[in-house]
């Protein structure tokens, strides 16, 4: 079990009290490729950010790799995100002043478990897996949208996380690139046994995943 959530409840307190997540229970197994679907405002992104440890304002219990995460300090959570969780967002969020390679290396440098040489070799390896090693030394601001998203995936992979989380990673891409990103995820799931949790609007995308979690008005309905 990579990730487990027990009885997660969340309220938005401003401008009025709003019960956005109601008694969420879910678990994700090792190597599982799971998508979360639902209409806008159903709370799926909110749930993702709680599961990602970035949002700490909730009630309930969150376990990552069997360890209880709820109630940890912010610094500990930063470390957990750094080591165990990889992120891919709808927008690519690369540091535009840095090269592609530097962007990919950054989380590993922060983790500081390997030497600079090893990190660079790892980063090149990830870029090779994603087939973008040729642009390794380009500025992050000088590459196309599809490429940026692949760089973001490489960056998410650099610390060999337990789980990759994505908030509409294909939402901003044309169908060709979206298909591309999906195949990459699928490949990672099958070949490397990586767990993935992807929030998406795209039914075609969701259908091809191992399991679909459907949400409505703050509850999981299937």
């Amino acid at each position: 079990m990579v990730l487990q959530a027990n009885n997660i409840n969340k309220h938005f307190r401003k401008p009025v009290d709003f019960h956005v997540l109601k008694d969420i229970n879910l678990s994700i197994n090792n190597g599982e490729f799971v998508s979360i679907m639902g209409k806008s405002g159903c709370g799926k992104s909110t749930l993702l950010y709680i599961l990602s440890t970035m949002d700490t304002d909730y009630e309930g219990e969150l376990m990552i790799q069997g360890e209880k995460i709820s109630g940890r300090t912010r610094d500990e959570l930063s470390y957990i995100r750094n080591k165990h969780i990889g992120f891919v967002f709808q927008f690519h969020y690369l540091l535009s002043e840095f090269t592609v390679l530097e962007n990919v290396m950054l989380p590993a440098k922060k983790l500081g478990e390997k030497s600079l040489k090893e990190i660079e070799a790892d980063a090149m390896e990830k870029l090779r897996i994603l087939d973008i090693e040729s642009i390794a030394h380009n500025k992050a601001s000088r590459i196309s949208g599809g490429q940026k998203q692949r760089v973001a995936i490489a960056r998410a992979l650099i610390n060999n996380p337990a789980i990759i989380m994505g908030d509409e990673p294909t939402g901003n891409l044309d169908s060709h690139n979206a298909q591309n990103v999906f195949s990459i995820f699928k490949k990672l799931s099958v070949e490397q046994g990586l767990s993935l949790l992807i929030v998406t609007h795209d039914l075609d995308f969701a259908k091809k995943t191992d399991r679909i979690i459907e949400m409505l008005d703050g509850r999981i309905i299937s």
Partner: protein
Amino acid sequence: MNSALLLGIAKKHLMTKVKQTLIAALGVTFGIGSYITLVSFMTGLNEMLDNLILNQTPHIHIYNEIEPSKKQPIASYSDFEAALNVVHSVKPKFSQTKIHNALPLLEKLNEDKRVRGALPQLNTQLFYISGPIELSGNLKGIDIMNEVSLFNFGDYIIGGSAKDLENNSSGIFLGSGVAEKMSLKIGDRVQVSTVKGGIFPLKVVGIYQSGVADLDDIQSYANITTVQRILGVPNNYITDINVKLHNIEEAPGMAKSVASQNKLKAVDIATANAQFETGTAIRNLITYAVSVTLLIVAGFGIYNILNMLIYEKMNDIAILKATGFSGKDVQFIFLSQAMIIGIAGGLLGLLIGFLLSTIIDGIPFETDALPTITTYPVHFDIWYYIIGFSFALVSTFFAGYLPSLKARKIDPVEIIRGQ
């Protein structure tokens, strides 16, 4: 490893915003540079003004004051011990103006370890005579060579030299005002007469100018033996002793003990010149007020630029936090940017301050009051540079602290979802 990584990110941010970084750093440079210049120039002026008076002022001035007896004779009469005695029109006690036992006292003072030197003076009133005109004035008998070494007497000689006076037993240094009034120049003869009568011809060997016009209009100097000869007194006749100490702080205490031990009046420099301390303190206050204002303005510049930078880098901050950088790491990045700006701007400011001070130090400045000064006075002190640099660090730290704290608190979820 971690801080090197964070510094690397900070550096990258600054490098891509060279113009803004430069402007922020120049703000600090301007503040520090003007602080250094101002404080060096101001203290230079202060020192000059203080020296004008203080250099020639002894740390302790010992003399015999004419005053009424503190204990009137009736107090010694036992019959009236229990009575209330009122004495009307008390007169000063008759005593000599010379210091009793002056030579042994001088010797004792000169042996004291705290004393740099104690010099005898003989002060007398006289008239400068030019035909029918009699100008009243003061003549001081001094030990000229020691006055030069202890009280910078040489700085105030505008014609002739100290040696000329030492070698001439009937020489006189006229005050510049006196010399002008009587149209006397070096080599001329002047006749002086003492209060008790008797006319003595003296040779003008030098002109003296203190810069204080009232003084220069009456004061002249001669060798102490010359004055003793004019007055017809023996060589132990000394009216004043001027003491210079190694440590000026010891003056008040020592003055007190000298006064009580020898039944003399002893005035220390702090009491005599309290107003100079006040003037110096106020001028320093103004200097620092202006400098701090400049630095605060520079601080706001840094604050503004960092704030803007943080708004621009919102996404970067969010992604850094999402990928495992803690709030502290992000704060470190922005705070170190402020400090880099502060250090670079500060160092440049020190350099600019030094250059400006050096330039000012070379500008000609001539004034009658200060015969030895030819350029604007500037005081160079390593401490100003240390203080200035610390100032730069502290102000940029505070200017960077608030924006960096904001960056630390940014919630990545809000930024990422806000898109």
